């Protein structure tokens, strides 16, 4: 056996050098829809994202944005819901419809060899949906049952009610649906919403994967000829926050074995100069497995299976939150420890060791988040929404590399103060 192997010391590390991303090519279809092209990867596959400014932010009544998005695949002028499903399944495609807060997207994953068969289906879904009454009824029944089940989960209750607390229940980000909204939903609301927001000029397309010389001409042929809903204009939506006066909230849920905890506050979005530095502070606090919250509340105290924090960016706002589920008997202690960790960020400089670790972790994490064509396209979409491009990440990496503990403690004092935090507990 070799005696000279040093198992105590970590093998020498090489820091990650500058990573630069090439912006995708941008072209326009004949009808003016911009298409961003990310040609990358090894597999002969494709992802096509259609993104509309049609999130819940734009709806006048709860559930309308979600239902419009989800019902696109439930029947068109030419095909029934079954025929659409049958075609997508037959060619091994996967179609996702995701209604977000700001945007609603339709994403198609497919093998390149089936592009010709699948693009007409995608075009139909986007251009000619009819929102059949019969399918809508089934959809509502199903969605209502899911909603009722979700309301049994402390984590879900905490999530939606927290938005209401920090943004206010009249705010587009804060308003939440209740049971009667399901019964009041009408087909006309969907048609109206579709016409206003699923328009050609409100659409962006991102194509990622293996692009060949047929890809773009086909896209143009199927998605570029129609000027969809050209005569309609969207309403402008003034934005106003009306958060609660009270900072501490509690929702009783009998028989809950664990209490869901959310602590956080409204902030700003990616365009604010403090956003990236705050992301680093957020990682220190609760953004990775070795974070302070995990180390203290899970790995030292064993109060929870997991705890984390996040900084969320929206078009008109942003927010920060910490979330966990802790045993009912220890939830108060967990809350105290959370505040202790928040306060510590303002009281003590982060050590050089810890900061270096976080920097290296974030750089590695960045590599993971751009690995493969689909990951790359997600990263692109998340800046495109703010009219930015990959140069944002040059700034991101530079700030990670150069930030100091002194800057971070100033930010903690400015933003992470206990008095400004909102707190919500859901449990016994």
């Amino acid at each position, binding site marked *: 056996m070799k005696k000279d192997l040093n198992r105590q010391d*970590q093998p020498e*590390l090489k820091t990650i050098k500058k990573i630069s991303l090439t912006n995708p090519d941008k072209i326009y279809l004949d009808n003016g829809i911009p298409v961003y092209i990310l040609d990358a990867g090894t597999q002969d596959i494709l992802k096509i994202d259609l993104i509309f400014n049609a999130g819940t932010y734009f709806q006048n009544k709860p559930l309308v944005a979600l239902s419009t998005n989800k019902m696109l695949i439930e029947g068109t002028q030419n095909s029934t*819901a079954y025929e659409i499903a049958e075609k997508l*399944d037959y060619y091994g495609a996967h179609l996702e419809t995701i209604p977000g807060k700001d945007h609603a997207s339709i994403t198609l994953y497919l093998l390149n060899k089936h592009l010709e068969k699948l693009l007409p289906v995608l075009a139909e879904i986007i251009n000619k949906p009819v929102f059949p009454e019969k399918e809508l009824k089934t959809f509502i029944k199903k969605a209502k049952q899911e909603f009722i*089940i979700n309301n049994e989960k402390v984590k879900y209750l905490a999530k939606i009610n927290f938005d209401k607390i920090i943004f206010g229940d009249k705010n587009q980000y804060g308003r939440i649906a209740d049971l009667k909204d399901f019964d009041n939903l009408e087909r006309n609301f969907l048609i109206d919403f579709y016409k206003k927001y699923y328009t050609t000029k409100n659409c962006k397309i991102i194509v990622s994967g293996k692009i060949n010389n047929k890809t773009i001409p086909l896209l143009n042929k199927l998605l570029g000829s129609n000027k969809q809903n050209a005569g309609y204009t969207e309403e402008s939506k003034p934005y106003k926050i009306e958060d609660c006066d009270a900072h501490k909230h509690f929702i009783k849920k009998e028989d809950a074995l664990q209490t869901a905890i959310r602590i956080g506050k409204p902030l700003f979005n990616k365009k604010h100069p403090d956003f990236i530095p705050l992301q680093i502070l957020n990682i220190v606090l609760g953004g990775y497995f070795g974070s302070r919250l995990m180390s203290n509340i899970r*790995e030292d105290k064993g109060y929870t*299976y997991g705890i984390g924090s996040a900084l969320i960016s929206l078009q008109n706002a942003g927010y920060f939150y910490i979330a966990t589920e*802790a045993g009912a008997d220890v939830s108060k202690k967990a809350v105290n420890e959370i505040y202790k960790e928040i306060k510590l960020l303002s009281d003590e400089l982060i050590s050089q060791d810890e900061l270096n670790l976080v920097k290296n972790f974030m750089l590695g994490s960045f590599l993971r988040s751009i690995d*493969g064509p689909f990951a790359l396209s997600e990263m692109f979409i998340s800046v495109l929404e703010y009219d930015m491009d990959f140069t944002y990440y040059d700034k991101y990496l530079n700030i990670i590399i150069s930030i100091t503990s002194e800057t971070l403690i100033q930010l903690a004092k400015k933003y992470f103060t206990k008095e400004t935090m909102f707190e919500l507990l859901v449990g016994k």
Partner: protein
Amino acid sequence: MINFEKFTLDNGLKIIVHKDTSTPLVAFNVLYDVGAKDEQPDKTGFAHLFEHLMFGGSINIPRYDEPLQKAGGENNAFTSNDITNYYLTLPKQNLETAFWLESDRMLSLAFSPKSLDVQKNVVIEEFKQVFLNQPYGDVWLLLRPLAYKVHPYQWSTIGKDISHIENARMENVKAFYKKFYNPNNAILSIAGDVDIENIKKLANKWFATIKKDKKSLRKLPVEPEQKSPEKLTVKRNVPFNSIYKVFHTCSRREKEFHTVDLLSDILSNGNSSRLHQELIKKQKLFSEINAFLTGGIENGLFVVCGKLIKGISMQKAEEAINTELDKIKNNTIEKNELQKVKNKIESTLVFSEMNVLNKAMNLAFAELLGDLSLINKEIEKYSVVTKEQICEQANLIFRENNCSTLYYLAQ
């Protein structure tokens, strides 16, 4: 097509290397051939609790996560009834840190009493969060013992009962480690832009000095053939009734597996599938319906389950499921329908080869199943399945005497 090279160290550690030059990351996966099925009936949940303890420091390295994060890496692990699998990804230039960390915890653990105490609490909270504090969360705690009377698949990886975790002692932990965490009971797979000669060098440096131990022979009790229907009805604080019907079927290793897998796809993979169309869309009896295989290394279960629309009786819902199962038993599969599920499988497999971590995990698991080359023969195995074979399996599986039914009712 996944290229690979395999070699074995003198201590029995099997190593598989897959080269993919398209990524700056390397995936490093260590599979230990131990799962919940290897636990004693009075100490269940142990394999999973142990997985948590593997992060509590090893003999020379006090903390596992810190150095990995310093190297820009990220890791996790999971325990199933069959295996315990540890995986990480990190930038390729820091690959050696993965060797250093994983070899040290294969060599020996720190066995810190504090880590044991804390992780017991963490796992108890996990038990509550995932199984007890969720609507329908305890379904598998009920179904497994209903379907398996003697085989250790009768308990979930989390364990039968919280008390088993509470009662775990350090001496149990040490014995478990000694028995199962040996190089000859592990498979290491590495995928990324790596050089095979360099991997051999590093493997020899870090893993070759770890002593092998005697491989304990697995003698699992054999589940006798089910002779009569099993039924259980429970009432819980949930909003809607649901039904679960589980049937004994083959294991992942048997040649019929691909046939049975396609059978489950015809029933419920995708919105155009039979159960979705018939029971959700046409008859409007269910809000959710699914059919899937548990897919373990030992004989598994074919599961059909659904949540009922409010107001629909259990009897009506169950009859509708049975009618669909009868239809497929009567050779009603159409040519297009079979081609559709085969196409879906093809695309699922192509997509699963997109990332190195997936590929590393799949390679290690294929090796455990007994034939690494099978990883590139999956599409072919599915493509040769005929509708007659599927029908034959349907008749073999969907028998009343082979079925355990759980009525999970709203209070």
